[in-house]
């Protein structure tokens, strides 16, 4: 039983990070109907920028974080401007392929610049374990979870109540109407990429802290797909709950079926959700049946 609870806590802790990454993808999806397959690589790149400034040039953690945030925003805006803007109006599938290509480029460049070996980033999170009653949670995971959930919730509130958030939702509902009502849709899309860059930056640094920093860290985003589908592709609020559920389920398969099954759990779940409820738990319409 304690083992069950320990694993549950660990899984849910990972789920908080999933929600944070998923949020970055959803915001872009809502603003511009672009599915950003390069999210994982953007995340990895931020973590490497952090590493380079904090460790290689030893500016310390604070400047490292600032550099990572600025760097990832610049990269996101460059991707948006050079790849996605020229592709506006192209079929959805073409844009998906383009972001997939961008991901491939970034992954390759990261390996070329920083090499394939694992790196240890300076520790941001305290190591001492957190005890919830009898449940043991490794310190880094617990703290990463807390940070992720706080950021997700405050971002959700921001997107719900701020002008920018309302503009984003207007653009999501109908770009052309939003445009004719005086909302600068282009700015909204850039804004969504900045949000994605920041969530990617934070989650990248956190994941590099919990695990270690490798060029292939970004592949975790492929697990996020199941979070997105389960939460509903157009539901910003759904990601948090879906993230926690997926994280927990992954931990459970690890516990009951053996750890190698963890890597495919998200994919089996995706297929199941697609079969049973393609809108996800909280998504609405959008799914066009044919």
């Amino acid at each position: 039983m304690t083992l069950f609870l320990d694993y549950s806590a660990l899984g849910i802790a990972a789920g908080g990070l999933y929600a944070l990454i998923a949020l970055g993808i959803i915001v872009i999806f809502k603003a511009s109907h672009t599915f950003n397959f390069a999210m994982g690589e953007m995340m990895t790149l931020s973590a490497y920028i952090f590493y380079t400034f904090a460790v290689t040039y030893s500016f310390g953690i604070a400047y490292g974080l600032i550099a990572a945030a600025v760097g990832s925003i610049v990269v996101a805006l460059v991707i948006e401007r050079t790849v996605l803007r020229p592709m506006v109006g192209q079929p959805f599938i073409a844009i998906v392929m383009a972001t997939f290509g961008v991901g491939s480029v970034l992954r390759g460049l990261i390996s070329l610049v920083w090499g394939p070996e694992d790196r240890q980033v300076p520790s941001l999170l305290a190591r001492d374990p957190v005890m919830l009653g009898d449940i043991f949670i490794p310190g880094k995971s617990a703290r990463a979870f807390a940070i992720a959930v706080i950021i997700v919730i405050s971002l959700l509130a921001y997107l719900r109540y701020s002008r920018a958030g309302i503009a984003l939702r207007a653009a999501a509902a109908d770009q052309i109407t939003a445009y004719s009502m005086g909302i600068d849709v282009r700015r909204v899309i850039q804004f969504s990429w900045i949000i994605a860059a920041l969530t990617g930056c934070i989650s990248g640094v956190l994941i590099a802290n919990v695990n270690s920093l490798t060029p292939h860290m970004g592949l975790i985003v492929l697990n996020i797909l199941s979070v997105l589908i389960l939460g509903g592709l157009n539901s910003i609020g759904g990601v948090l709950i879906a993230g926690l559920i997926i994280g927990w389920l992954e931990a459970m398969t690890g516990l009951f079926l053996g750890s190698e099954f963890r890597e495919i759990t998200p994919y089996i779940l995706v297929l199941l959700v697609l079969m049973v409820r393609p809108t996800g738990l909280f998504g609405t319409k959008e799914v066009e049946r044919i």
Partner: protein
Amino acid sequence: MVADPAFITGTSNYIKVGIMLAVLLALPAIAPAFWIYFLAILGINVISVYGLNIMMGYTGLLSLGHAAFMGVGAYSAALGQIHLGLPFWLAIPFAGVMTALIGVAFGLPSLRIRGLYLVIATLAAQFILMFVFVHWESVTNGDVGLNIEPANLFGYVIGTDTQMYYVILAVMLLTTFFTINLVRSRVGRAFVAVRERDLTAAVLGVHIVYYKLLAFALGSFFAGIAGALLVYFNKFVTPEQFGVQVSIFFLAAVIVGGQGSILGSVLGAVFMTVVPELLRLALLAFGDTFGLDTSLILVPLRETIFGFLIVAFLIFEPRGLAHIWERAQRKFSTRRRSG
């Protein structure tokens, strides 16, 4: 939709095709052994790219799991020979049919829904199938893979690369002939109609789900055949031949070559097979001079270049090399006429 350059009709084209065939047939007699090896792999890639192009280029169904489907074909052929004792001529179609079935099983839940869902389902297929190849050790022998006997065609053992080259050439010509006729038929037109605007196609009486399933099944079938030929060519199969980066390779081949074009499939496969090879040779030649560790940078360099090609072609030349080729030819022929 521009029709394919009809490079197989017309008298002058018959001559061109004849010359090309003659060269391909005579090549093993004159070319070095490495070329034959290379061309055989190229032929397999062409068959696989036809499959992906039927799905992506003609019907608009993006698949990120094409390599894994090839893997299904390869393992089906290998297991068919080991456990069922299937002869070569039966193992190839068997692998194709198995792959089509598994492809449809993965595609079925999402082919009824639009948009991103099929992409995700095929990506799920990529990872789940890969997992099966690696972890179902009692059947697939895990990372070590399976070894098979050389192909045996009605008593003749087809063991050497050159012999397999001829077999692959024959299958490639058959699939080319099939694909050319397919895309010109009612079915091919239905595929294009589904791609361009599925609702309109439905209004015009095209049964969308049926044609999507058919395209998916055909694409997987081609992948399966290509995988089966690959296992008979190498005489072994391991999971690492079918990773996600191989799926990206095929995706890039279709985009670079030209979506919805047969000539494009061939050009894309040639380009994507030749470029990494040149890259490797260049690195081998110059790597030491610049103190680069060739083995370390080759894979990421490839990833970067494949990704860059995908993005660049999507933005600047969405119809791919086939379109460039067409334009070049048109220019050439008008100049000749006016001159």
